[in-house]
């Protein structure tokens, strides 16, 4: 590969990795707090993207305002979904809860499709422009920088929040030993709802980032949500750091595959990775051994 190809792959890896890691982090937060393997992140991506585009269409909030509100609203939707459906399935086996998330995702995506109608999701104008910015000799577009920056900020907040705040401490306690947490007076229901809310918000941000980059149809956005699974598995279901690393590695493999072969190879490469991880090291790079007992 020549150097311009290398640059393209690196930039692609960082940007795609950023988007994937937002989705994956949400999944991990949900898994740690409630032990649910959710297929619904894709749906929250789409919902968030739709809300973002709608808010942007109204124009009153500006780019960042629309982004934040879209994230918050999607987080609320996610928390409601959790309270409405998942709380009734506590203690039931994991497969059932996952199938329920598949049902939610299917129905939710269909509703988004209907709302969106025939069109792909297009922003009112191009808020970030297209000029190429060189950083360390690598060619970034403003959207690339935005996406990466977004991921960095989100992860900084997330990791700091979980490690340093009282509520983060309670989340870690619930993730570690949920029953003991309940006996210690922690409201596990509220913590779990918060976890789902956070996951919905990060998914929404990922969806919005995708809309900024492209003009996708809802299905395409949802497919990206599923594409995060290889990254999640690679990193380990219960590790946020794993989500970041797994996403970057997957994005790298995807970009190399696309460069060397063609767009069609992206999925095969990703799912090939998934299979290899499943067969060789199901707990992923950073997951705890508890994860294999699914």
């Amino acid at each position, binding site marked *: 590969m020549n150097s311009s190809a290398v640059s393209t792959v690196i930039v692609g890896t960082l940007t795609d990795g950023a988007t994937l890691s937002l989705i994956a982090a949400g999944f991990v937060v949900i898994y740690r707090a409630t032990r649910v393997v959710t297929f619904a992140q894709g749906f929250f991506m789409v919902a968030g993207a739709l809300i973002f585009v709608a808010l942007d269409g109204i124009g009153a909030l500006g780019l960042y305002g629309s982004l934040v509100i879209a994230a918050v609203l999607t987080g609320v939707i996610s928390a409601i979904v959790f309270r409405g459906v998942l709380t009734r*399935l506590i203690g039931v*086996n994991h497969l059932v809860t996952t*199938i329920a998330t598949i*049902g939610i995702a299917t*129905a939710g995506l269909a*509703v988004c499709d209907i709302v969106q109608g025939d069109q792909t999701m297009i922003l009112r104008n191009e808020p970030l422009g297209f000029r190429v910015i060189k950083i360390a000799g690598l060619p970034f577009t403003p959207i690339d920088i935005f996406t990466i920056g977004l991921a960095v900020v989100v992860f900084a907040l997330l990791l700091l929040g979980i490690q340093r705040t009282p509520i983060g401490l309670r989340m870690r306690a619930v993730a570690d030993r949920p029953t003991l947490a309940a006996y210690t007076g922690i409201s596990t229901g509220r913590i779990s709802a918060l976890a789902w809310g956070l996951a919905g918000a990060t998914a929404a941000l990922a969806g919005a980032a995708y809309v900024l980059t492209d003009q996708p149809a809802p299905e395409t956005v949802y497919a990206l949500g599923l594409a995060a699974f290889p990254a999640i598995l690679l990193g380990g279901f219960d590790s946020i750091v794993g989500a970041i690393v797994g996403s970057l590695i997957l994005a790298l493999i995807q970009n190399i595959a696309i460069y060397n072969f063609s767009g069609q190879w992206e999925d095969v490469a990703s799912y090939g990775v998934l299979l290899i991880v499943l067969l060789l090291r199901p707990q992923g790079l950073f997951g705890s051994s508890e994860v294999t007992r*699914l």
Partner: protein
Amino acid sequence: MNESVHQTARRWRDYLGPALLALAAIIVLAGGDAVYMYQLALVGIYAIAAVGQQWLIGRTGQASVGGAAFMGIGAFTATAVAGHAWGVFPLPILAAAVAGGVVGLLLGLTTVRLRGLYLLLSTLALEYIATFVMQEYEGQNGGEFINFPKIGAFTFGQGERYNLLLIVVLLIVVVVVQNLYRSATGRTWSAIRQNEEAAEVAGINVLGWKLIAFVGSSAITAVAGAMYAYQLQSVSYQTFSLDLAISILCMVYLGGQYRISGAILGAAVVTLLQFGLQQLDDTGSGGLSSWLTLNGPTLDTAIYGALLVLIMLFEREGIAQLLANLRDMVAAQVTRFRGESA
């Protein structure tokens, strides 16, 4: 003579299967327009696929979204075989079954150590990899065509003839699977579903039986794919998407994951939802009608997605169980009535 509720219910159930089959044959022979016949054909095709997938998912407890992949494998194999002069009916179908079985075996061997959700994820991988292979194949060979099956001069053409053939295939599949389930081997798969470790300890060769379930289930699903190819007369990798896989999963759970009738029921419900919405559309007026035309298929998806959630929440054994409860209630009433008038 007074029968117990159980006996009454069971008698009804034994008559029910043949009765429904007769009903199905009558419906098909009664005829209808092309769209109607097509919808019935789809029900039949998906019913075969659902019965196949249910063997793996419901009876043996191995989660899978591989339904679409195996249908695709069956469809492409059948089309390829039928393209040759020696590929006369029923060879394409048999070839599809073999292809499906082989890939199913491979899947089983690769994922033998995986359980539950990990297995589900690996079938997700299968879906994408299979789609890729089909896409490449299609790219190399262009779109291939397959004609309706024929024996000698008799063609099972579009409409009644094809649908009757479909019923025959479905019948064969159901009879085979039902006999398997009712035998001791059927209980073996149930035992594996309930507790793999316990089954192992009890001396069951879990690996062997799981592989058989993988092979059989995949072969049947591939047969469904072959029949689908005949119906569409040409296949593309795009038909066998994750959407299809999830809708087959929904059929299995919606209908009832533990009963063959459940699989058929689920296939009917999911397929006919769309048809029903279309009927609504035709009789409706103006705004609603055009909205339904535009959004019918998606609304259908939203509905069965929601139904899946409801089933998981409230009746994990699906609609078939709800109907069975209804049947028991009615049987109880009838028995009481008979008892009172005796």
